[in-house]
């Protein structure tokens, strides 16, 4: 904002003003690019997944980058998926809406839907149960497994949903995940 002010009437050196504006713009772009690069690094660990402390070190600006990566179909599935999990560290209305839409949409790619379940559960706990209950009815066994895992993360609020599904679940791996989520 201070840079814009330099365009004010009476500025004797418009050329320098333009240079300063350009430099400031480039500086901001460079900072954005540097943050994006650090976010992508953290989403691309070969054997490493980022912690809350890693994201905290990048500041709140990381959440916008994470949302951008998660929505970018040109990014790899694991980067997008890890961004969805990481959004769980940055609760906010836009992120919640996006995570919720992925969890509820049967057409969402399996990996993204699974990761969205985790991000949603970590960020919104009991408020995520209704969305996760939809995913728990998915025809994809891996999505059901992750919905169960996510319901385990939200604690007691997810218990009745898990119990209800356990009564009709016929896949052994999903049953195991439900029982694990119920602490059995």
């Amino acid at each position, binding site marked *: 904002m201070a840079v814009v002010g330099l365009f004010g009437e009476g500025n004797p050196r418009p050329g320098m003003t333009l240079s300063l504006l350009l430099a400031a713009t480039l500086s901001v772009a460079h900072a954005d690019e540097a943050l994006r690069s650090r976010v992508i690094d953290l989403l691309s660990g070969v054997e490493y997944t980022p912690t809350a402390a890693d994201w905290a070190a990048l500041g709140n600006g990381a959440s916008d980058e994470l949302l951008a990566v998660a929505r970018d179909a040109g990014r790899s599935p*694991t980067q997008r998926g890890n961004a969805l999990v990481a959004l769980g560290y940055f609760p906010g209305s836009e992120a919640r809406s996006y995570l919720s839409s992925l969890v509820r949409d049967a057409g969402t790619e399996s990996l993204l839907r699974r990761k969205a379940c985790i991000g949603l559960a970590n960020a919104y706990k009991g408020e995520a149960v209704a969305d996760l209950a939809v995913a728990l009815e998915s025809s994809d066994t891996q999505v059901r497994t992750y919905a169960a895992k996510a319901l385990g993360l939200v604690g007691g609020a997810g218990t009745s949903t898990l119990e209800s599904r356990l009564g009709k679940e016929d896949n052994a791996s999903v049953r195991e995940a439900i029982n694990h989520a119920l602490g059995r």
Partner: protein
Amino acid sequence: MNSTHLATSFALASFGLGLLTACPEDEAKGADNVSVEDLGSFTTDTGGEVDIPWTTPDGVVSTEVFCGPYGYGDNLATAAKITSPGGSEIYNWEDPYGTAMRVGTLDDMLPVLLSVSPDLAVEEGDYTMRLLMAVSNLPATVSCSVVNRIGDVSGSNTVDVNVVFVGVDGIVAGMTGAAAESDDTMKAIVAGLGDLWSDLGIELGEVSYEDFGGDVDKYTVVDGDEEFGNLLREAGDGVHLTFFMVQDIDLGDGASVLGLSGGPPGVATVGGTSKSGVVINVANAASNPDEVALIMAHEGGHFMGLFHPTEKSGAGHDPLGDTPECTDGNSDGTVSTSECSGKGAENVMWWAAKTGTSVEFSGDQAWVVARNPVVLPK
């Protein structure tokens, strides 16, 4: 030489059975240079410590001792110290980066490989490892064995690769035992792996494909350390490296990792242990086969005794003299690829997957790998 030839039928259950029988197929491919010896059972004191002695034969080029199983959760083990035949302490866990030796702190099975650096070449004679266990019930008893490789070392080698598909044909249709050989994506992955490993002086030898015979539903998404270890137990014996290709790998926090090696280093040539292979996440295979090739090259490198040139935090480095080290210049807890340009990010063993950037191995890395028991000199 007081040891026997590797048997392809060796399984974890044979720990404690003593001598193994020779396998003509492996002998024909040079596995007569590799021997497996059962060291027996060892019981710790109430502090969790016990000495594991073993002898390396004349002409040894590498030795790998491994002890377990001791389970998961909070059950961990490492080497408190290792003493060489000359009586030198070549590793002490209180100063883990103090020598050119590296030892993990691992669940279920602890493999320890010599050498992981040309600065600490393996010697002939008597070694002792002070095993240190932190498990739920002490004293604890574990079985230990040793793999020794003797004979020639070459700068030109081959590695046989066994690729096992664990329910991943939904990601790439050709990722099955029957279709992989003619599948374009798999061909691109294998070619990429060959390109990257060529910098190590390694050519791909026999590449075989098969479908996983176990519980695909359970293992196609590897969830947690115990599932990871249990999948690796399905790897067979032999002078080869087994890659399990899965839909996803989640170590418990819900996020994906791209690959994991048993160990590192992995238990070479002996199947049936929780460190007997490598697991690869193929979620990105359809859009980026080169990344899967990079991850296979990276994890295979771990299996054969390589470490990250600089760990993600910047706090640890590999024991090699010719790999660059990077420091966390901005103190954010992460050595980023951009701040480590020219300082390790170009190495295949870089901690983050950077396809097209991380393409190099160093001479010291080639030195280490050339001595691994799964590597066959040409």
